């Protein structure tokens, strides 16, 4: 299967005067339409790794290849376009725009990409809302729905531009355990349905065990990398 994301000899050092290295020679690649989880203690460097994979941060050295394209020489605007078209983000907090409705929030990545909202875009948004189960609240303001619904809205938003990769940084970290279960089942479902590659950071072992592959990061190095047969 094709490699959708490749990390080659990634090092990350923070600070100018006092240097703190958080990632050491990370080499990782992810296959298309797999469901991956990254675990590790806080401070292990997993969020930094996630930010580098998501092009939000740059590695101090090493290369990142997304969909076969090396992003090292891309400028900020090119990276923004790449993120918009290839990558969906789900964070621990939903970061929905409180001024907009659920529907409008979902369409924002689409509007960043396209001038006008087409009928197809609306029907895709409706399909996604159906899948994540928030059709009933589509015209509510983002602040007028429950926490679980907000995170589902964030998931639908991450998927509106049909990204190849969805990166999740503790996407259920803020939800109770039963909702966590439902949201993960939902992500798995989307992974199978749209063949989207998922890379999810979590500290919840139960959640991680459901993934096709578990990568453990410890002190900036890969401690463990196990794949299940699909």
């Amino acid at each position: 299967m094709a490699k959708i994301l490749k990390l080659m000899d990634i090092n990350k050092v923070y600070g100018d005067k006092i240097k703190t290295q958080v990632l050491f020679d990370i080499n990782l690649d992810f296959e298309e339409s797999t469901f991956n989880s990254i675990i590790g203690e806080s401070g292990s460097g997993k969020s930094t790794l996630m930010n580098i994979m998501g092009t939000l941060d740059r590695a101090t050295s090493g290369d990142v290849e997304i969909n076969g394209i090396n992003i090292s020489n891309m400028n900020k605007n090119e990276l923004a376009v790449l993120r918009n078209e290839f990558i969906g983000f789900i964070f621990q907090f939903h970061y929905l725009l409180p001024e907009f409705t659920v529907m409008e929030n979902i369409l924002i990545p689409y509007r960043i990409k396209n001038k006008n909202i087409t009928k197809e875009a609306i029907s895709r948004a409706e399909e996604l809302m159906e899948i994540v189960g928030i059709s009933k609240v589509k015209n509510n303001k983002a602040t007028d729905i429950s926490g679980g619904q907000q995170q589902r809205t964030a998931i639908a938003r991450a998927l509106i531009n049909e990204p190849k990769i969805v990166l999740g940084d503790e996407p259920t970290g803020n939800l109770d355990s039963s909702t966590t279960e439902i949201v993960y089942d939902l992500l798995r479902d989307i992974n199978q349905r749209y063949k989207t590659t998922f890379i999810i950071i979590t500290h919840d072992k139960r959640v991680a065990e459901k993934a096709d592959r578990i990568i453990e990061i410890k002190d900036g190095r890969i401690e463990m990398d196990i794949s299940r047969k699909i």
Partner: protein
Amino acid sequence: MRLAFSIAYRFLKSNKGQTDLILIGIIIGVSVQIFIGSLIDGLQISLVDKTIGNASQITIVPAGKDKYFLEDRALLDTLKTNDNLTAVSESYDNSAFININGDTYPILLRGLEFEDANMIYEFSDKLIEGNIPQLQNETLIGATLATDNNLKIGDEIEILTPEGVNQRLKISGIFDLKVSNLNKTWIVMPIEGARAIFVNDNQLTSIEMQVSDVFKADTIAEEIKNNLNNSSVDVVNWKEENEELLSGLSGQSASSIMIQVFVLLAVLLGISSVLAISVVQKSKQLGILKAMGIKDNQASFIFLFQGLILGTVGAILGSIFGVLLTYIFSIFVKSPDGTSLVPFYLDYKFIGMSALIAIVASMIAALIPARNTSKLNPIEVIKNG
């Protein structure tokens, strides 16, 4: 771009308190600017009008030490068809004495075509008694001269010229030009009569003119002079004769501009600081927008559009309030005689400029928050969240 605009609009709408605060700031700024500007403009116009409204603004006078120049009908006709001029009046003036019961007083005998002179001096409106002279030996005298010497309509006065001519004139009317010196010394009569007294046919002492735009009097005078091609005459205008008034006016304008600039500066700082706070408040949303692929300059436009929207709404409302304020002031603040102290005067160009400047200033004020937005790094805010 449209997304940036709609986000800007929603940000403003959702944060009503803050938006209203900025708007009130801009409205007060713009309305004060327009009020002060219009007030000063109105004051200046009324001052200029009072000073030179009933006086010659451009005058053709004899060149050098000459006292007279030859009447030129063709010149008069071209002047009368000049669109820049609102009044053209020829006059024959000479100093003389008036003899009242054995006492003589120096006077200025002014020979005028009343029809033309009325356009400048408005004798018809300023007559407090009697009529405009119809005959060559009739005259108008000033109110001060009349009361001082107990003269009435129909009385005869005796004019003595330096050349020794003695002429009796009949008073047909009494004027009040609101300037005591003129009311005391001017004897105004038909031009032919005046010429007859001094035996000076076809001579003029001046051609007096008024212009539509008084502040252009100097350039119009220059034009007339260039077209005249006549070395026996000279063209003077009110500006060169009223330098003190002009410097007073420009001082007033300068202080008015200073006030306006500082009001604008205060508004600018206000908008800038409130929007800068708004960037901090919205940093999480801006961070996620950037993660989702909004470009740095698009994100900046969110705040530039906020500046534009605030500036436009503020400028429109501010203009309305400013005009209203000026109007109310002109209605309620009156001088003792019932006329408004400062006439209601609107310069649409000035109002338009003020509004435009306010909009531009609002956008400039939005530049700093826009720059901060552009610099905002999504991982900073997402990490902190």
